């Protein structure tokens, strides 16, 4: 039974593989240390006496990944830093059992653009490079204009993923569409295919290219950004892993964003931190998805801009203006 289950779940087996290889590495290291100790017994002995005198002998209780409580000397504790292989593996698999979903309440948006700033700060983007952008929308001359924050829609039938020639952009089990800029060849077919214009390309050296040099690449944050590759909204996959709300959601001062798990049928408002039932929220407010007729099956829902709580002040901003 357990064997079968293991086979069915690729995530488990992959993590097992990683653990297996780190165990092998560990054993190898023990071997080397052992050999060294035989060779230089005397030196080690004096070193041991010296260390014993220095060490406090304090221990600490630690919960391991397989849920065992173990005790280790305090001075041997090191911060865990996942390497590229771990980041890539877990980044591609996503979080088991989750189906992330976002709800954007258009009646509350007053174009504060705090979501944009928070996102650009987290992902090291320039002021005109967007993962999220707030647009001025007006369907026709006689209908009122409103603000619309636009993220990647994390489609369940993503055209960008279909056309990618190298599997650089992919759909995870938790519904998030990510881009692996370690693999992207920069053909921009995904940009051509995306009806939401959700993607951006690094036409030049990214903003923090110098500062981010040498940093381990986290596909869930897409930092360091790379010249000649695509970048896009990630639903803050790194924050979601830590069970916190996405950057844009928690930065909004006006309660526009809800984020949560479709499987739990619960979404949390980023401003009020109030958790509500997803189905009820959509039903009561006539939730809809943009360009749903294209068959992309977005994971971002919109609540119509009815009874707007803020006045519409600004006309359409078609051009970017440097704000000083």
């Amino acid at each position, binding site marked *: 039974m357990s064997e079968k289950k293991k086979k069915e779940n690729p995530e488990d087996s992959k993590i097992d593989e990683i653990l297996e290889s780190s165990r092998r590495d560990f054993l190898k290291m023990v071997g080397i240390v052992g050999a060294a100790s035989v060779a230089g017994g005397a030196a080690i002995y004096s070193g041991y006496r010296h260390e014993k005198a220095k060490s406090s002998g304090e221990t600490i209780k630690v919960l391991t990944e397989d849920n065992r409580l173990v005790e280790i000397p305090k001075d041997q504790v090191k911060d865990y830093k996942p390497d590229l292989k771990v980041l890539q593996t877990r980044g591609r698999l996503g979080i088991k059992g989750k189906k992330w979903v976002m709800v954007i309440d258009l009646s509350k948006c007053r174009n504060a653009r705090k979501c944009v700033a928070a996102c650009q700060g987290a992902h090291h983007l320039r002021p005109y490079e967007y993962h999220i952008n707030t647009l001025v929308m007006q369907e026709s001359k006689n209908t009122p204009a409103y603000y619309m924050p636009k993220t990647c829609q994390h489609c369940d039938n993503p055209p960008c993923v279909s056309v990618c020639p190298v599997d650089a952009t992919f759909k995870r089990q938790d519904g998030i569409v990510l881009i692996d800029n370690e693999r992207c060849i920069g053909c921009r077919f995904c940009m051509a295919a995306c009806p*939401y214009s959700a993607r951006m*390309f690094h036409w030049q050296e990214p903003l923090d290219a110098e500062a981010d040099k040498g940093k381990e690449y986290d596909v869930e944050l897409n930092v360091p950004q790379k010249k000649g590759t695509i970048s896009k909204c990630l639903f803050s996959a790194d924050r979601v892993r830590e069970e916190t709300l996405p950057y844009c959601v928690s930065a909004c001062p006006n309660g526009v964003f809800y984020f949560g798990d479709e499987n739990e049928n619960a979404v949390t408002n980023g401003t009020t931190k109030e958790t509500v039932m997803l189905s009820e929220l959509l039903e009561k407010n006539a939730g809809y998805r943009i360009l749903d007729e294209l068959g992309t099956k977005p994971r971002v829902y919109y609540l119509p801009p009815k009874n707007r709580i803020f006045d519409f002040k600004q006309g359409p901003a078609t051009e970017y203006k440097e704000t000083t």
Partner: protein
Amino acid sequence: MTTSHSGSTRYRERVDSVSKDILRNVRFNQGFILWMGFLTAVLAVCLFAYTIQLRKGLGVTGLRDITSWGMYIANFVFFVATSLVGMLISSVLGLIGFKWVKPIARIAEIIAVAFASIAGLIIISDMGRPDRLPNVFIYGRVQSPILWDVTVVTTYFLVSLMLWFIPMIPDLAIAKTRLNGRPAFLVKAYELLSINWVGHKKQVKTLNEAGRILLILIVPLAFAIHTVTSWLFAVTPRAGWDSSIFGPYFISGAFVSGTSAVIIAMFFYRKSYKLEKYLTDFHFEKIGRVLALVSIVYIYFNINEFLVPGYKLKTLDEIHLKELLAGEYAPLFWGVQLLGLLIPVILLLFKQFRKPLPMVVIASFVLAASWLKRYIIVVPPQAHPFLPVQNVPVEWIVYTPTLIEIAISVAPLVLALMIITILSKLFPVLPIHELAEEETLAVDGHETDLAHIDETAVYNEEKKANNN
């Protein structure tokens, strides 16, 4: 027996006279060196521009997030399109049995080889990370049309190369004994490439079979390369690309640009290679009719492509069509449609315009318009996406190709010209044995039994005679 013997003697005489005319151009003369030197200099400038792009990123082009495919992709489509003519002339028209395509078939294959081989390179110049090209083979996913394109363009190039080479084997055998005064390596190459061709019955049979298989094989292949290229656009939902007739629309357009390229090449070879005897007014008259026919088919697809969405005027189609027909792109659109398609067709209906000189002028207009047409297909539909473009710098909204981008776009043309020059300067540009056969046939009234002609024997005899 006697007739076939006299036929073979006459055939040999014909081979002598035809090969003298054709092989006259196989040499490294001053013109060749100057021309190649000029191309190399231009290429160096283009490559310098490319090093700037490699260093600074694609930001040195006019491309931005809104219009992320521009000149490079238009150029790619144009090159794939033009290469399709190899299939049209040697395969479609040849298999139907038109004898007049014989002297043109190799020219068409040269163009096919040159343009198909360069098409792949253009895509590399458009890539943000060309160093990651191996990823396409390491991580390639079959559901991406790019993978289909890579596969079929490569296959088409290889089959076109074979279609250029295989019918030339007898010519190489004929020519290897007649290359006096040429560099030794060229004679050696001819000997090697003629792969022991002696004109034996079995060899003739194998050659004909191989040629026939390739000619049939290349038809679906050629349709595949340009249909798949059109799908790079048609698989997206954008207005202007979201069209179910994009496959045939592209293919019919490809025949137009390819045929005009062949006409220009024919004119050039006729003049500077002094081949008036073989590329006659009759051939121009015939290929002129072909250009008129394929252009009319293309006009038909154009009507479908613009009239149907224009009738319905769905919001985004309306914006796109307004931009094309009456907006920013109107001069380009109408220039291309009128000067590059409609007027050429009308002129070509008249006999006096199906003469070499008027036709090369017409073909030049058509070929230039074909390139601009690809630009119109690729660029404008990106300017108006589904959601509004806001809060970006103005140069991100309007696409204007930069000088560096134009320089890099010239490189493929230079490379294609280099390949055409080398293929037509180092090897016979017209099929010697077929032309000789045709002339003998005209005199004898029946085909020569090629089994009686042993080129090696001829070669040995000549060698003997020289030694004596």
